[in-house]
């Protein structure tokens, strides 16, 4: 399925509408249904009522900055964490940390590499395959197949400590695919990966989605969410702020563009000046510049530059960006995605 084929049904935090139903073109019950997930660490509320559904063949992205609650949500969905509230149902079966059989439907790819460096690629795949009940010739065949898919067939007998970061990442993902799960959960799988490996990983995820696997993909890279995900949930401070297809989410921003300024000087003062201008809906300081959310950016630009230059800001470059998920995040939270 594609994003364009999805029914437009954006859900912003402000309205009380229920979660979006499975995207159009998806047949049958959702593969994942999670509702009202809550997790506290001491006094800190890390996840506050997160809920969404993922249909078969759908790729759902959880987009948010570091610390937004993505990994905590995933950990509860996969049964790694005891949750303080909410329910998780995968393939019709409830998931709890103590459940075993229901977890067989999930393929989990943790954010950090989770492979044994002193075992070979084949040994790693074989061992984790055995944990999922695979064995004998079928396991050997599946391991060989995956080694081909991730381009490590010729390195199958090498210990993974000799692998590059990208090779380890690919193996890390392959382990999650061994048992052909109904739901694949990928927690920021491209962090620290070189561009070539990153592209290969994204292509593989797209292919898996086309094959009918339900995929939950967390990232703080806007481009990945835009490229991969049929629907995106924007998460910040433990809450889903909005959910929908890319087009639906961008429509939340309206005709607002994002202007990225590379500049030197008192950036905080400049941000305050910008916020005071009519048509500026948000201004955040980042390293080496400012991100602004403005109505009709190209029309607004001369006035904006004049005001900021007059305030002593040394502007080095300007980029006007059409509305994207970064702009949506800025619009919804008042801060940049990378914060």
């Amino acid at each position, binding site marked *: 399925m594609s994003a364009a084929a999805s029914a437009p049904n954006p859900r912003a935090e402000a309205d009380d509408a229920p979660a979006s139903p499975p995207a159009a073109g998806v047949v049958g019950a959702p593969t994942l249904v999670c509702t009202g997930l809550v997790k506290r660490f001491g006094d800190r509320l890390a996840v506050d009522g997160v809920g969404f559904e993922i249909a078969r063949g759908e790729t759902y992205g959880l987009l948010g900055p570091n610390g937004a609650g993505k990994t905590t949500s995933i*950990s509860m969905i*996969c*049964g*790694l*964490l*005891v949750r303080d509230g909410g329910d998780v149902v995968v393939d019709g079966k409830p998931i709890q*940390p*103590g459940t*075993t*059989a*229901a*977890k*067989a439907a*999930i393929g*989990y790819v*943790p954010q*950090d*590499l*989770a*492979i*044994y*460096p*002193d*075992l070979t690629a084949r*040994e790693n795949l074989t*061992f*984790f395959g*055995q*944990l*999922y*009940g695979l064995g004998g010739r079928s396991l050997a065949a599946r391991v060989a197949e995956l080694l081909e898919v991730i381009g490590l067939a010729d390195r199958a007998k090498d210990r993974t400590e000799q692998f590059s970061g990208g090779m380890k990442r690919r193996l890390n993902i392959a*382990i999650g695919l061994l048992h052909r799960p109904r739901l694949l959960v990928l927690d920021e799988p491209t962090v620290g990966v070189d561009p070539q490996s990153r592209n290969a990983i994204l292509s593989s995820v797209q292919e898996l989605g086309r094959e009918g696997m339900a995929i939950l993909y967390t990232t703080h890279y806007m481009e990945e969410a835009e490229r991969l995900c049929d629907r995106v949930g924007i998460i910040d401070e433990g809450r889903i702020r909005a959910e929908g297809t890319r087009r639906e989410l961008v429509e939340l921003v309206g005709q607002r563009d994002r202007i990225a300024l590379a500049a030197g000087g008192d950036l905080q003062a400049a941000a305050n000046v910008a916020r005071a201008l009519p048509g500026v809906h948000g201004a955040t300081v980042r390293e080496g510049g400012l991100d602004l959310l403005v109505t009709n950016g190209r029309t607004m630009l001369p006035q904006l530059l004049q005001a900021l230059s007059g305030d002593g800001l040394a502007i080095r470059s300007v980029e006007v960006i059409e509305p994207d998920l970064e702009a949506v995040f800025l619009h919804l939270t008042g801060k940049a995605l990378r914060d």
Partner: protein
Amino acid sequence: MRIALVIAARILRQRLRDRSAIIFAVLTPLGLALAFSILIPNEFSAFHTRFVVVDNDRDHVAAILVDDVLGSLAEAGVADVDALSSESEAISEVESDQASAAIIIPAGLTAAVESGQPAEIRIVGGEFPLSLEIARSAVERFAQAVGGVQLMVATAVAGGSMPDAATISAAQAAAGEPGPIAVSTAALDRRQADLATFYGAAMAIMFVFFATQYGALSLVADREVGTMSRYLAAPIPGWSILAGASIAGFVLGLVAMGVLAIATTVLQGADWGPPALLVPLILAAVVAAMGISTLVSSIARTPQQAGGLNAIVALSLAALGGVFIPVSQAPEGLAVAAQVTPHYWFLRGVDTLASDAATLADLGPSIGILLAIGALTGAIGLVRARAALTVR
């Protein structure tokens, strides 16, 4: 259970591949056991001394003491016993350290015993209190055996001084207690493991901790490298993860101790006793080491920390348990404290096996306490490890 075996096989493969288990659990203790036994020849392992005896009675009661009681010491290899003709000659030998004690049998001993009159056997000791104690113990046992006879055993230091009142009183009290007429040498029958066996066993029980720790360490390592999250996400019960680690630790411990027992037997002639009795003792020792390793590792946050803690605990318990200094030579308080260590009970079990007449029942205390130590510490460790499997 299949999953537990899969996990155990993975751990064993990793440990054999990096050779850490072989180095720490087999090669190091074997090397140390060989070195100790070479540096301290086996002939000196058993206590040995020399007594001289002066028989002024020359009758059949004195003959029982000389031939049966003191003769059994010679037969057991504890002491050479030589007869001398005069008291002055005997004391001279003690003073010159040629003998550690002189036993002076008074004239008329047999007549006194038969007529119920008091008699006194004097023991003159030299610089070695242990030797004097052995001689005194043997003669006192003889005195007790001669029931109803007022036989006094007097001890003195070299020079022939008379016993003090307390000694005489104690001896009289002892002699006053009736006992069987047959002189029992049961107390002298208790054997100790020879040097090769002792050091082999001592190194085995000390280093088995370095073998069994790898099971528990794997759980800590899985948390550190992130693979624990895969276990938690997999459709497997939590107990299988713990069981897998425990099986790996058990196998490594068993192999380490087994190799040491076989190697010291073949290379050094160590006598570990009958295999049918040794195997349960080794199994119990491995269980105890596993339990303690599991508990210690459950406290640690990193594999490095767990390894360090395990080493500290293993060496401390070894020192306390008589691996370096035999418990028999330790101060009384330390000797009592040693009994909380698995090392003490394992070495005691090995000593028990040195007796040809040893049975499984004789090993009962050692095996029972080793298993109890393993069960108690292991249960606490597993509960702690189990709690760490799920983040709350």
